[in-house]
């Protein structure tokens, strides 16, 4: 059986750094398997968050060889094992211990986004009529598993730490799923511009690249939202059009 070397981030906010491990690896193993093996055989106190091992719960987010990834979906076959594999916690959130970070900031931010506000029901039984093609666009955004890898890789959070001014790609996807919903009547464009800081996004597309659900975050969520903000606040022709448009 082959062995592979790993450099695993250990420690907490007071003191932390890489610790070297070597463990057996076999065909079909993923990074999370190796971490569990190290935990079982060499480091019983190694902290790692995980749950489904199927890429659907979004718990085991980490940075493998510097790339934000789900550990359960990163096969060792796909990594160069001639060099040590580095495994680090996400860098955009505060470290709790070892590979575990405190992602609670995301939940606080999500609570502040205006909730789904549907128009009055179309029928007396309290239901609505919608076309599938109108729902298809927002369906993509509902694939999000809240792994927060997009938040982790976004340089506005990761490098500039603008957590108070910028909600990050995950929450733009969430906002887009509400804002573009055919039944929704709420207006979130003012918040997007002012408090959610969509202007801070400079379209590097890193969020799209790391999304394990392959959501086209930048092209289908962020840029369309930016364009709606332009409609509302930066386009004088649209403003004129709104002034002279007959009221419905």
């Amino acid at each position, binding site marked *: 059986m082959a062995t592979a070397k790993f450099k695993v981030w250990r420690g907490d906010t007071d003191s932390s750094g890489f610790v070297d491990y070597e463990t057996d690896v076999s065909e079909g193993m993923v990074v999370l398997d190796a971490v569990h093996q190290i935990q079982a055989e060499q480091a019983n106190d190694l902290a790692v968050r995980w749950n489904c091992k199927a890429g659907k719960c979004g718990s085991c987010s980490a940075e493998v*060889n510097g790339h934000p990834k789900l550990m359960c979906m990163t096969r060792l076959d796909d990594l160069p094992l001639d060099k040590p594999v580095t495994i680090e916690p996400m860098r955009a*959130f505060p470290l709790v211990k070892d590979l575990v970070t405190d992602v609670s900031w995301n939940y606080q931010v999500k609570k502040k986004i205006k909730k789904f506000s549907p128009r009055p029901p179309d029928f007396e039984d309290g239901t609505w009529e919608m*076309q599938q093609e*109108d729902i298809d666009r927002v369906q993509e955004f509902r694939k999000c598993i809240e792994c927060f890898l997009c938040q982790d890789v976004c340089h506005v959070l990761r490098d500039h730490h603008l*957590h108070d001014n910028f909600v990050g790609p995950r929450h733009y996807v969430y906002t887009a799923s509400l804002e573009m919903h055919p039944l929704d009547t709420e207006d979130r464009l003012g918040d997007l511009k002012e408090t959610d800081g969509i*202007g801070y996004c400079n379209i590097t597309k890193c969020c799209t690249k790391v999304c394990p659900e392959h959501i086209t975050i930048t092209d289908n969520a962020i840029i369309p939202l930016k364009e709606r903000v332009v409609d509302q606040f930066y386009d004088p022709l649209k403003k004129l059009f709104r002034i002279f448009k007959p009221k419905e």
Partner: protein
Amino acid sequence: MTELTLIKRKFGETSRSDTWWIQPLVVFCGLSAFIVYTTWAAFQGEHYHHGPYLSPFYAPEIFGNSEHSWFGAKPAWWPSWAPFSPAFLILWAPAGFRLTCYYYRGAYYKAFWADPPSCAVGEPRKGYRGESSFPLILQNVHRFFLYFALVFVLLLAFDVWKAMWFDDGNGGKTFGIGLGTLILAINVFLLSGYTLGCHSLRHLVGGFLDRLSGAPIRRTAYNCVSCLNSQHMRWAWMSLCSVACSDIYIRLSSMMDWTDPRILF
């Protein structure tokens, strides 16, 4: 809000072991080469036309000395101390369209400003305002450059039509297709793919609506633009190369006074 204690990373600091620097380097070299060549070509003010062919860097020729000029030679109001080239009057439109393009923005922020140098790689600067304040808030004018770009594509398509009419030697014109015609036609095709796949156009034709099912024409337009938009980066680079190649071909044809391969009907 949670108090976040995070560590600031140094410029270039990363655990990535792959060659993350290649892509921004290629973008830097590609865009730099194009900017240098375009600036040089724009300042030449000559060899931008040959027979029925007109370089896309100079099209439309509003004022100029060639037979393609709309309003004759250099205007009298042009300052005598300032250098003149027909390209100066029009290049701002396609340049502004590309400069404010969502794809190019993401690419040159990485390649020229290292903001960030690449995904998950440390940055050189501490401060960051993004596109939320001056000057980068001006990127929001992209849709206005789009309007100009759409007109330019139509004008360039008309130039392809004009590039099919060659002098017959008796003062008349004869219809034909030359290598230059094909190059200009391919250029218009690639520019159309790039312009019609623009993110702003995608929004304007239907993306702004939450319900497209009740607007079949908008829905079809939105789907077509979305299809082109999914490959926007490729269209952007291919059209950038084709514009430069078209100018190079016409410039060389003019300088060497070639008669290029052509089929006359």
